[in-house]
């Protein structure tokens, strides 16, 4: 770091090749201000600092660079985890501190596991389509595959690993790191034990440069450009008069200097052109600017947002094309979560006059804040034609934002408010009861009041997809089941993962929803015995493709028999953690459910590894089975 960081012309938000496709979970880390502890040399330090810029206590520092390593201190946010918030098993806080289980390999509760793995959720009936798919990093940068975390072929995955994702460089001192994960290649739930950050300490001189640069960054774009051009006006005492003087007298000179430079390059270009033949000159005169407007629109519709903004800076014509509202009917700002700011929002508000779909998930975190008022204005201006809105893990939302949503966006068909539990907690999103056209409602890991939920269910008879995973204790799933069976008979997918407790009675009531294709009762059906309720349910819901019964400990062989006989269309079945089921039943299911693709038998008994391998080969089903070694540690 001997050169001054000021010579870097672009800021840290450079190429897309450093970004991995962020499909799901994200964790934020927050570190204590390091350098105040005495043991900063050992790896016993548990603090995290940012990538290049490190916040150090400058006085403490004395020598030149040497390596230090730190573990994460605390988790600021995450988009999904396997366990419930209060638990210390399979949840996000387990990633802090030193590894507890590594290098042992296995399924341990002392680690952090995310909610999904592989592409099974994309194959389920409840899959969602990305808006503006060209914005997702997959398409422009071909090398994202190498940077992705899980690139090793399957045979490498069954042991504990350390791996290093690339860190995106930014120029600000920071204490927080966000890790993005893509699960597409994962074989099963992958659990992370700890995150270790290692790097070098700066020395004081560089620190000063860095702080200077940071100061300079906070100046406006014009000053920055001037600095880059090495044009420094000589400012003495009464600089205001100086500026006026400059504008009146020297501005002309300044512009002519610039245009001289331009003229020179044009002359060079013309000389080059004259050496071409006349035919070539003719063809080189017809270009993009001669295309009809509609063709240009069509071409630009393939561009991602960044390129769209860049191309608009080229010429008046291209600016007019690139700001046409038709290009902004769908907006996906999730891949740009680190760039979305209030200013961007107001710029987009001017262009997106016929906005139909908006995805602002993950925006508004510590790097760039978005003011809730601006967002409210945005919604008030553009929200009435919105049909799809995703605000997963959007930290800038407050009560009045949600209220505005409820009031303005009454054409909403899809509303996704995953992980939307800001502090202070918003328990009451009452205006959401106004929405009457919802077809998809996603409240994964969001705290919502029971009454409001029941009202919303009543008001939205067209509801097709409902996700209530990690719903808080206050919401009784039996009541929800009652409501759904009365008002939401068109329901296709229902997710109740780790919600608070559906009883056998509730299960029975749900059999009224004959259109159900996907249902997730994981950790939710805690009753000791299901009686005939599962049989009734399966008899009525014949279209079932995905049935997740993880940790439904009351399942018996009889229930498995029903599953085998009554679910001909079953594609995904999860029976994790259910003891006391016999091998014959598994084979029965494998034989009768011919469309089965996934069968999760982890932590079930009466199975041997060779059985699993044999069944997997014979029936062409992906069977998961893993156990924790018997001496529980």
């Amino acid at each position, binding site marked *: 770091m001997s050169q001054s960081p000021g010579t870097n012309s672009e800021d840290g938000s450079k190429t897309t090749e450093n970004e991995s496709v962020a499909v799901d979970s994200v964790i934020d880390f927050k570190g204590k201000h390091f350098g105040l502890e005495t043991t900063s040399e050992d790896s016993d330090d548990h603090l995290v600092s940012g990538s290049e810029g490190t916040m150090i206590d400058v006085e403490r520092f004395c020598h030149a660079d040497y390596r230090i390593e730190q573990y994460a201190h605390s988790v600021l946010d995450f988009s999904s985890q396997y366990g419930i*918030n209060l638990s*210390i098993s399979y949840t996000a*806080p387990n990633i802090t*501190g030193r590894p507890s289980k590594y290098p042992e390999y296995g399924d341990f509760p002392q680690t952090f596991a995310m909610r999904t793995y592989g592409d099974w959720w994309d194959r389920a009936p409840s899959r969602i389509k990305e808006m503006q798919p060209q914005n997702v990093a997959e398409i422009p940068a071909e090398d994202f595959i190498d940077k992705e975390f899980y690139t090793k072929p399957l045979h490498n995955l069954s042991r504990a690993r350390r791996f290093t994702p690339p860190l995106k460089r930014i120029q600000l001192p920071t204490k927080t790191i966000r890790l993005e994960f893509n699960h597409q290649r994962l074989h099963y739930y992958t659990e992370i034990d700890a995150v270790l950050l290692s790097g070098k300490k700066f020395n004081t001189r560089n620190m000063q440069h860095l702080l200077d640069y940071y100061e300079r960054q906070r100046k406006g774009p014009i000053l920055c450009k001037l600095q880059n051009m090495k044009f420094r006006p000589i400012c003495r005492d009464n600089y205001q008069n100086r500026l006026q003087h400059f504008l009146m007298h020297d501005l002309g000179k300044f512009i002519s200097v610039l245009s001289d430079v331009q003229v020179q390059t044009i002359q060079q270009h013309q000389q080059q052109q004259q050496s071409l033949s006349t035919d070539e000159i003719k063809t080189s005169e017809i270009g993009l600017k001669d295309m009809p407007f509609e063709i240009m629109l069509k071409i630009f519709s393939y561009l991602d947002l960044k390129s769209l903004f860049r191309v608009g800076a080229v010429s008046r014509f291209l600016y007019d094309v690139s700001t046409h509202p038709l290009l902004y009917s769908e907006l996906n700002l999730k891949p740009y979560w680190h760039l979305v700011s209030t200013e961007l929002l107001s710029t987009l508000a001017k262009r997106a006059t016929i906005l139909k779909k908006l995805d602002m998930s993950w925006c508004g975190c510590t790097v760039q804040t978005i003011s809730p008022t601006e967002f409210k204005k945005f919604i008030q201006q553009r929200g009435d034609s919105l049909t799809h809105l995703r605000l997963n893990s959007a930290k800038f939302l407050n009560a009045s934002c949600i209220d505005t949503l409820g009031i303005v966006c009454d054409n909403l068909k899809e509303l996704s408010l995953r992980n939307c539990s800001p502090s202070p907690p918003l328990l009451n999103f009452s205006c959401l009861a106004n929405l009457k056209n919802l077809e998809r409602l996603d409240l994964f890991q969001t705290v919502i009041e029971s009454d409001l939920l029941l009202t919303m269910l009543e008001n939205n008879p067209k509801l097709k997809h409902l996700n209530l995973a990690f719903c808080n204790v206050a919401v009784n799933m039996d009541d929800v089941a009652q409501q759904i069976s009365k008002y939401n008979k068109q329901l296709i997918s229902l997710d109740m993962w780790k919600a608070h*407790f559906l009883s056998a009675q509730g299960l029975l009531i749900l059999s009224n929803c004959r259109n159900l294709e996907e249902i997730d009762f994981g950790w939710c059906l*805690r009753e*000791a015995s299901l009686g005939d309720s599962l049989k009734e349910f399966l008899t009525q819901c014949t279209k079932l493709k995905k049935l997740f019964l993880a940790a439904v*400990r009351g399942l018996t062989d009889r229930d498995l028999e029903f599953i085998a006989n009554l679910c001909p269309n079953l594609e995904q079945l999860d029976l994790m953690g259910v003891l006391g089921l016999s091998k014959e039943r598994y084979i029965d299911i494998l034989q009768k459910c011919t469309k089965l693709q996934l069968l999760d038998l982890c932590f079930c008994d009466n199975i041997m590894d060779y059985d699993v391998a044999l069944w997997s080969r014979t029936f062409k089903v992906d069977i998961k089975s893993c156990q924790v070694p018997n001496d*529980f540690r």
Partner: protein
Amino acid sequence: MHSLGWSSKLISRALRSGFSALLETATNVTSNSGGSKSRPHFISVVCGFPKDFLTSKYKPGKYGEDSWFKTSTSNADVLGVADGVGGWRSYGIDPGEFSSFLMKTCERLVHCVNFNPQRPVNLLAYSYCELLEQKKPILGSSTACVLVLNRENSTVYTANIGDSGFMVVRRGEIVHKSEEQQHYFNTPFQLSLPPPGHDHNVLSDSPDSADTLSFPVKDGDVILVATDGVFDNVPEKLLLDMLKEVEGVTDPVKLQMTANSLALMARSLSFDSEFMSPFAINARRNNINATGGKPDDITVVLATVAI
């Protein structure tokens, strides 16, 4: 099913009080090195024998079906023992799993940000709730005894369910002792998680029924936390005599020697078929003709308080 009832009540209570389980990074400092303020701390040692000592393999943290843990944070020292109920073996369930899990989870919970040193009952309760969140179904039941030294006010807080317990000796006298909780003879109070379908014929006590006690401690106090393998086989007087010896002792080696002899004594007495152990006396009181000791797993956690 009652376990479900109060566990969800517990969770909602915690939610309302703004509970959020963030794990602090583990700082396993066993003794207070920088002692500039007079903060009390434990010097603790452990010893024990599983019932099948001669044939079993040693596993850390367990003695047969018994389990223990001891840990410290910056503001508390915590000791705990748990005794798995052996009757589960006939259902094909390993009784040691439950107690082991309970103790290990208590230890992890101590290092959570929201650990309250004045309510060890919470440790037991949340540990129990964690059981329900395990992928691998853990079944069985166990007694438990957890003891926390709060450094702020030099007070010990305890929570005890069942027939494990603790004893505090000061100046040659027993100043505090836990009470055995039993439903009937040889059936102590126990936290349990039965296999589905057996809920109604299995005793399951909630952590709320734990006996809680709190008392101040002084420099030199001796604290013994042990499972019923010790209390059922070694008469109180004998225990007192041994614990008197180590009052005020801060040398861990000497403490370890005492713990070892305590455990050994309990073991030899348990296999003595003629000795009138406390167990035999109690049995006779319940009209059961028994003599001799009670062979059982023995766990001894011995600590002295230093200020």
